[in-house]
Every structure is written in C-alpha cells, then in structure tokens.
C-alpha cells in the first residue's frame, strides 16, 4: 500500500495571544480528498485555526506539517488555495478588474518576467467559467455584489489549481439559492478533482448530509467525526453553551 502523507498533520497545537488562550492542544489530521467543515461559536478560534494552518499566525506551541513537511521546508504554497472571510472588507476603490484579480491566482507560480503561458490562460478561463464570472470579467471588483465578489475570490483561488481549498465562511452575504449552488460546486471539486476542501461555516443544517468530516472548535477540538454522529444536541450545547435548537434559527440574521 502506498503511503499517503496527510495534507495537514497538527499535533498539540496551542495558540495564545496576549496571555489569553485562543486554542488549546489541538491535534488533527486531514487527508487528501477530505471534505471538512469547521463549526463553532464566534470567538471560538475557527479562523485562528485556519490562519495557523496557513502559516499566517505562529503557534505558541505544537507542530503543523503540510504534506508531510514542516512549515519551514514547505514550498508548494500554490497547491493551497485560500479564500479569506473578509473579502468584503477589501478596499472597494482598489483599481482592479475581475480578470486582473483572478489572474493574481497564477502570479506565485509564474517565474519572474514570465509572460502568461497557455497553461496560465487556460487555468484562468477554467476558474472563471466554474465560478460563473466570465461575463463580468471586465467589471471593477468594487462594483460587484457581495456574492459576485465572493465568487471572484474563489475563482482566484481555483486559478492556481490548488490541491487544497480553504474557505473562511465563504457564503456570508450570499443568498440561499446561490448558497446551494455553491455547496454543489464544492462537492463537485471534491468528488471529481479529488480536491481537499476545508471550510468554516454556520450553515451546518444545510450541508450536514454532504460533509465528510466535521470539526467543532471552541478553544479545544470537541469532535472530529462523521457529522451525523457528531451533531447531537449534547455536543451542540457543549459547543455553544446554549440550546442547540436556537442556533439553527440564530445564524441567518
């Protein structure tokens, strides 16, 4: 049997900021092809966990390996696509067309001086088609709706042909219909292209059936199971500290 190194191998990860504990003793393993959701209350450390995985924060203690390699040795960053939460918080007046932003996804893989190759152009076109932003490619990003902007950010991540796609609350500010389409797309990327998908969400009710693995994070990692076993009211109560039924109604405002 061929040994497959995990995409992420996290052991005893602890992160503190200003003496305050954000994450404690997290250990988890994500394998190639996993389809994972991370849920948890606001301030529970979900985004911090993702930022640690991406190397944007340095752990207080513990280790993270990417594709079997420690951070310092890891070089294949273009294999990891990242769609941050604050896409809406980016400068609305920034002079960039949709096409220019999607092209950014190829920059890290291009050599210096390198002109866009046919491969670059194809990757960009494919990413734009998948996210349905081809028609708006000449619009300025500042003129887009929240949902359109989110799709552009994902297209940029896809343009680098990542093996792993990490999304932080990808559907904030997106209406329910395109949400469904969006999850269908994630599922397709996972099933057809064997892309490892990791995303933070509040919409656990919408997607529980599809998720391969569910991580519930509130300072510590509470569960990392098959979602159908994981989402019991007890767990939810432990996670959010309130009655779980409230949550389903709570997250849509």
């Amino acid at each position, binding site marked *: 049997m061929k040994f497959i190194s995990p995409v992420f191998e996290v052991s005893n990860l602890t992160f503190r900021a200003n003496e305050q504990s954000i994450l404690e003793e997290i250990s988890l393993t994500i394998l190639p092809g996993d389809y994972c959701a991370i849920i948890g209350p606001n301030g529970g450390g979900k985004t911090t966990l993702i930022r640690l995985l991406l190397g944007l924060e340095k752990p207080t203690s513990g280790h993270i390996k990417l594709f079997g390699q420690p951070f310092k040795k890891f070089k294949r960053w273009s294999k990891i696509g*990242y769609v*941050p939460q604050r896409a809406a918080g980016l400068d609305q*007046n920034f002079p*960039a067309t949709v096409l220019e*932003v999607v092209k950014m996804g190829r920059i890290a893989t291009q050599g*210096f*001086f390198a002109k866009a190759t046919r491969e670059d152009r194809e990757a960009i076109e494919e990413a734009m088609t998948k996210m349905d932003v081809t028609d708006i490619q000449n619009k*300025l990003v500042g003129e887009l709706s929240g949902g359109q902007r989110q799709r552009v950010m994902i297209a940029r991540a896809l343009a*680098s042909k990542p093996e792993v796609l990490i999304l932080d609350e990808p559907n904030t500010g997106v209406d329910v219909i395109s949400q469904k389409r969006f999850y269908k797309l994630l599922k397709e990327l996972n099933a057809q292209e064997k892309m490892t998908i990791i995303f933070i969400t509040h919409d656990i009710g919408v997607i529980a059936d599809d998720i391969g693995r569910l991580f519930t994070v509130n300072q510590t990692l509470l569960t990392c199971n098959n979602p159908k076993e994981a989402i019991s009211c007890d767990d939810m109560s432990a996670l959010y500290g309130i009655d779980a039924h409230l949550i389903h109604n709570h997250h849509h405002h």
Partner: protein
Amino acid sequence: MLEMLSYDFMIRAFVAGIIIAILAAISGSFIVLRRYSMITETLAHSALVGVAVGVIAGSNPLWMAVVAALLSAWIIEYLRSYFHLYSDSVLAIMLSGSLALAVIIVSLAGAFNSSLFSYLFGSILSVTKNDLVVMSLFGVIALSLLGVFYKQLYFIAYDEEVARTSGIKVDMLNFLLVSIVAIIIALSIRIVGTLLIGAMMVIPTVAALRFRQGFAKTILIALLFSVVAVIVGMSSSYFFSLPSGATIVLTLLFIFIFSLIVNRR
C-alpha cells in the same frame, strides 16, 4: 518655444525629469494603494541629510542622498516590524529627526546658501552630466526591479495575506519596494526638490484612480499625468524663472482638480 531645447542644461533637465516622472508614477501607485503615501515625505527629508553631508564633504550630494534615503527606509521598516510601532508615528519621528540632523550639519558647516534652496524646491539648472549618469544608472535598476516584480507587488497591494499564503515573498518584496522608492526619491530632489517630491509620487495615481479603471489602465493614466506635468512644469520653470519643483507640483494639482471635476459622482 522649442528654443529652450537648444540649451544643454534644458535637455539634461528634461531627460532627468522624464526618468523621474516614469519611476515616480509607477512606484507611487503601489505606495498610494498601500496607504503608505507619507513614507515619500519622510524619505525625502532623509535624503536631505545625505545632501547636507555631500555639500559639506564635497562629494556628489546625489550619491549621498541615495545612501541616506536607503538607510532611512531600512530603519523605518526595521522599527515597524521589529518593535511593532505604528507606521505613521515612525514616519513622523524619522521625518523630523532627519530634518533636524540635516539642519545641524548644514549650520555647523555654515553652508546655508542658495544651492541648498535648489535641493529644497528643485532647479532645472542644477542637473549636471554626472547627475544624469547617476540617475540613468539607478533609474534603469529601479525600473527593471519594478518590471520584474510588478505583478507580485500588485497582488500584495490588493490582498497581502492571500499573496503570502500563495507563496509570494511578501516581506522581501515590501523591503524591496521601499528601497526602490528611497532611491527614486533621492534621485528626484535635483528636479523636484525634497519638499515637493511627495506630490510627484502621490498625485498622478490619486488623480488616475478617479477614472475608475483596472490596474493596468490606472498606471498608464498615472504615467501620462506624470510625464505631462513634468514637461509643462519644467517649461514654465524655464519661461518664468521659477523653481521647477513648484511648477511641476502646481501642474499636478491642476491635473488633480481636473480629474475631480471630470469624474464627479
């Protein structure tokens, strides 16, 4: 009108001015979009320290200005990242500190004179052949570096974190950008002067942004404004015997007002 081009000093001034116009517009666009415009003012004042040293030591003030501006840029970045100080405070400290140092050096040497005035506000008469060589040399280096890293710098300006996670060497490129800017500012003080170079880095891009285009077009518009302002400004400097830095910046101001009026919303 074209008779001014029969003077060697005017030709040198135009060549120097256009080199600066191109460099300032391109590098300025990254600085403006990163909300880091004030670094141009600080580095310009630091360059003045180099000028002061150069005037007194009798070496080429332009070389000294490049060295001083580079050192200042590196100190600023070091203070910002190592001590986590607020950027604008660091810039304010370095600006006043540099100016104080420059004034003391000049005073001690008793060298307050008209040549210093030309470093403050620029002068078309001051560009020597040697200057032109120095400016072309550094100009070519700066322009090639900007050309090589243009896309990366653009990605960083738009979305620094995603640029970082996609494997772009953000810290190295930030360092490179401020170094390039330091060199450009130091080279500019002959024509535009230390007190006025900030406008030259900032206004073309801010005016171009009003036209709400993508990045490539925005840079082209900024380049156009910058070059036009240098040509118009230096010509008026010649005809009315005014400091060229002042006439260039006033031209830029007119362009800025024009772009505000044309793009009312």
